[in-house]
């Protein structure tokens, strides 16, 4: 059990434990905060995988923006009666069964792939992942087209969200 494996197991426990709390907790604000803990664990996983840019962007985008959006939305749509009843549907055991079946299927599938227990080779010495990612995202024979399409998508989402959420002044 190397130190790296111990850190991975602890982080995995954080991610999965927080995810279980997200989907079971009754108070919706607590669920949003458990989501923050889970996303932070995912950022630590990215850092272990040596994708530093993605780790930092995960904290900035998910925790700094999306989680705060969730918290604002929870605060703006509260009604006292809604939180007294049960928060899960009556037949919650069907999704639980479905989830367990899916998990078993996926784990069996994963373990049957030959060579899936490989460990990672070291990164080549001169590789600066941030610089390589930057070049890949704007290089014409790499991924500039998805990059531009993503920016158009975000513009559309920005305009759409502002329009939908604007209060109609009748």
């Amino acid at each position, binding site marked *: 059990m190397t130190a*790296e494996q111990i850190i*991975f197991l602890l982080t995995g426990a954080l*991610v*999965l434990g927080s995810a279980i709390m*997200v*989907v079971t907790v009754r108070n*919706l604000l607590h*669920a*949003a905060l458990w*989501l923050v803990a*889970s*996303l932070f664990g*995912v950022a630590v*996983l*990215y850092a*272990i995988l040596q*994708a530093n840019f*993605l780790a930092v*962007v995960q904290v900035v985008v*998910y925790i700094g923006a*999306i989680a705060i*959006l*969730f918290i604002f*939305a929870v605060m*703006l*749509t509260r*009604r006292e009666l*809604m939180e007294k009843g*049960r*928060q*899960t*549907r009556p037949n*919650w055991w*069907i*999704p*639980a069964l*479905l*989830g367990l079946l899916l*998990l078993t299927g996926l*784990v069996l599938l994963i*373990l049957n792939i030959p060579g*899936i*227990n490989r*460990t*990672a*080779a070291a*990164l080549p010495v001169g590789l600066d992942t941030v610089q390589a*990612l930057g070049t*890949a*995202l704007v290089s014409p024979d*790499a991924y500039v087209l998805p*990059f531009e399409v*993503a920016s158009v*998508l*975000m513009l559309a*989402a*920005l305009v*759409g*969200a502002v329009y939908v*959420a604007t209060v109609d002044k009748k």
Partner: protein
Amino acid sequence: MSIPLSWYLILAAALFCLGLYGVFSRKNAIAILLGIELMLNAVNINLVAFWRYLNPTQMAGQAFAVIVFAVAAAEVAVGLALIISVYRRRKTVVADEIDLMRW
């Protein structure tokens, strides 16, 4: 790196199944969106793990993950705007009660 690739994939599969459970079993529309966020993160872990373990010099995995970040952010923004707008008219965010197209 001494962590086998299968560990990352199993973690991502478990997170995905938890998100799936969250989507199907919760009544509140915002809680359903929380489940969707968990599923998107599971997919991202998969992408980045494959990038690192199979071919770290080719940036396809990380670029894909960056696009997934952008799509998730856009989707959450529009989804929450819709939920807030529906709440203003119908005074409810329970997904079962939003079942009529008009009035």
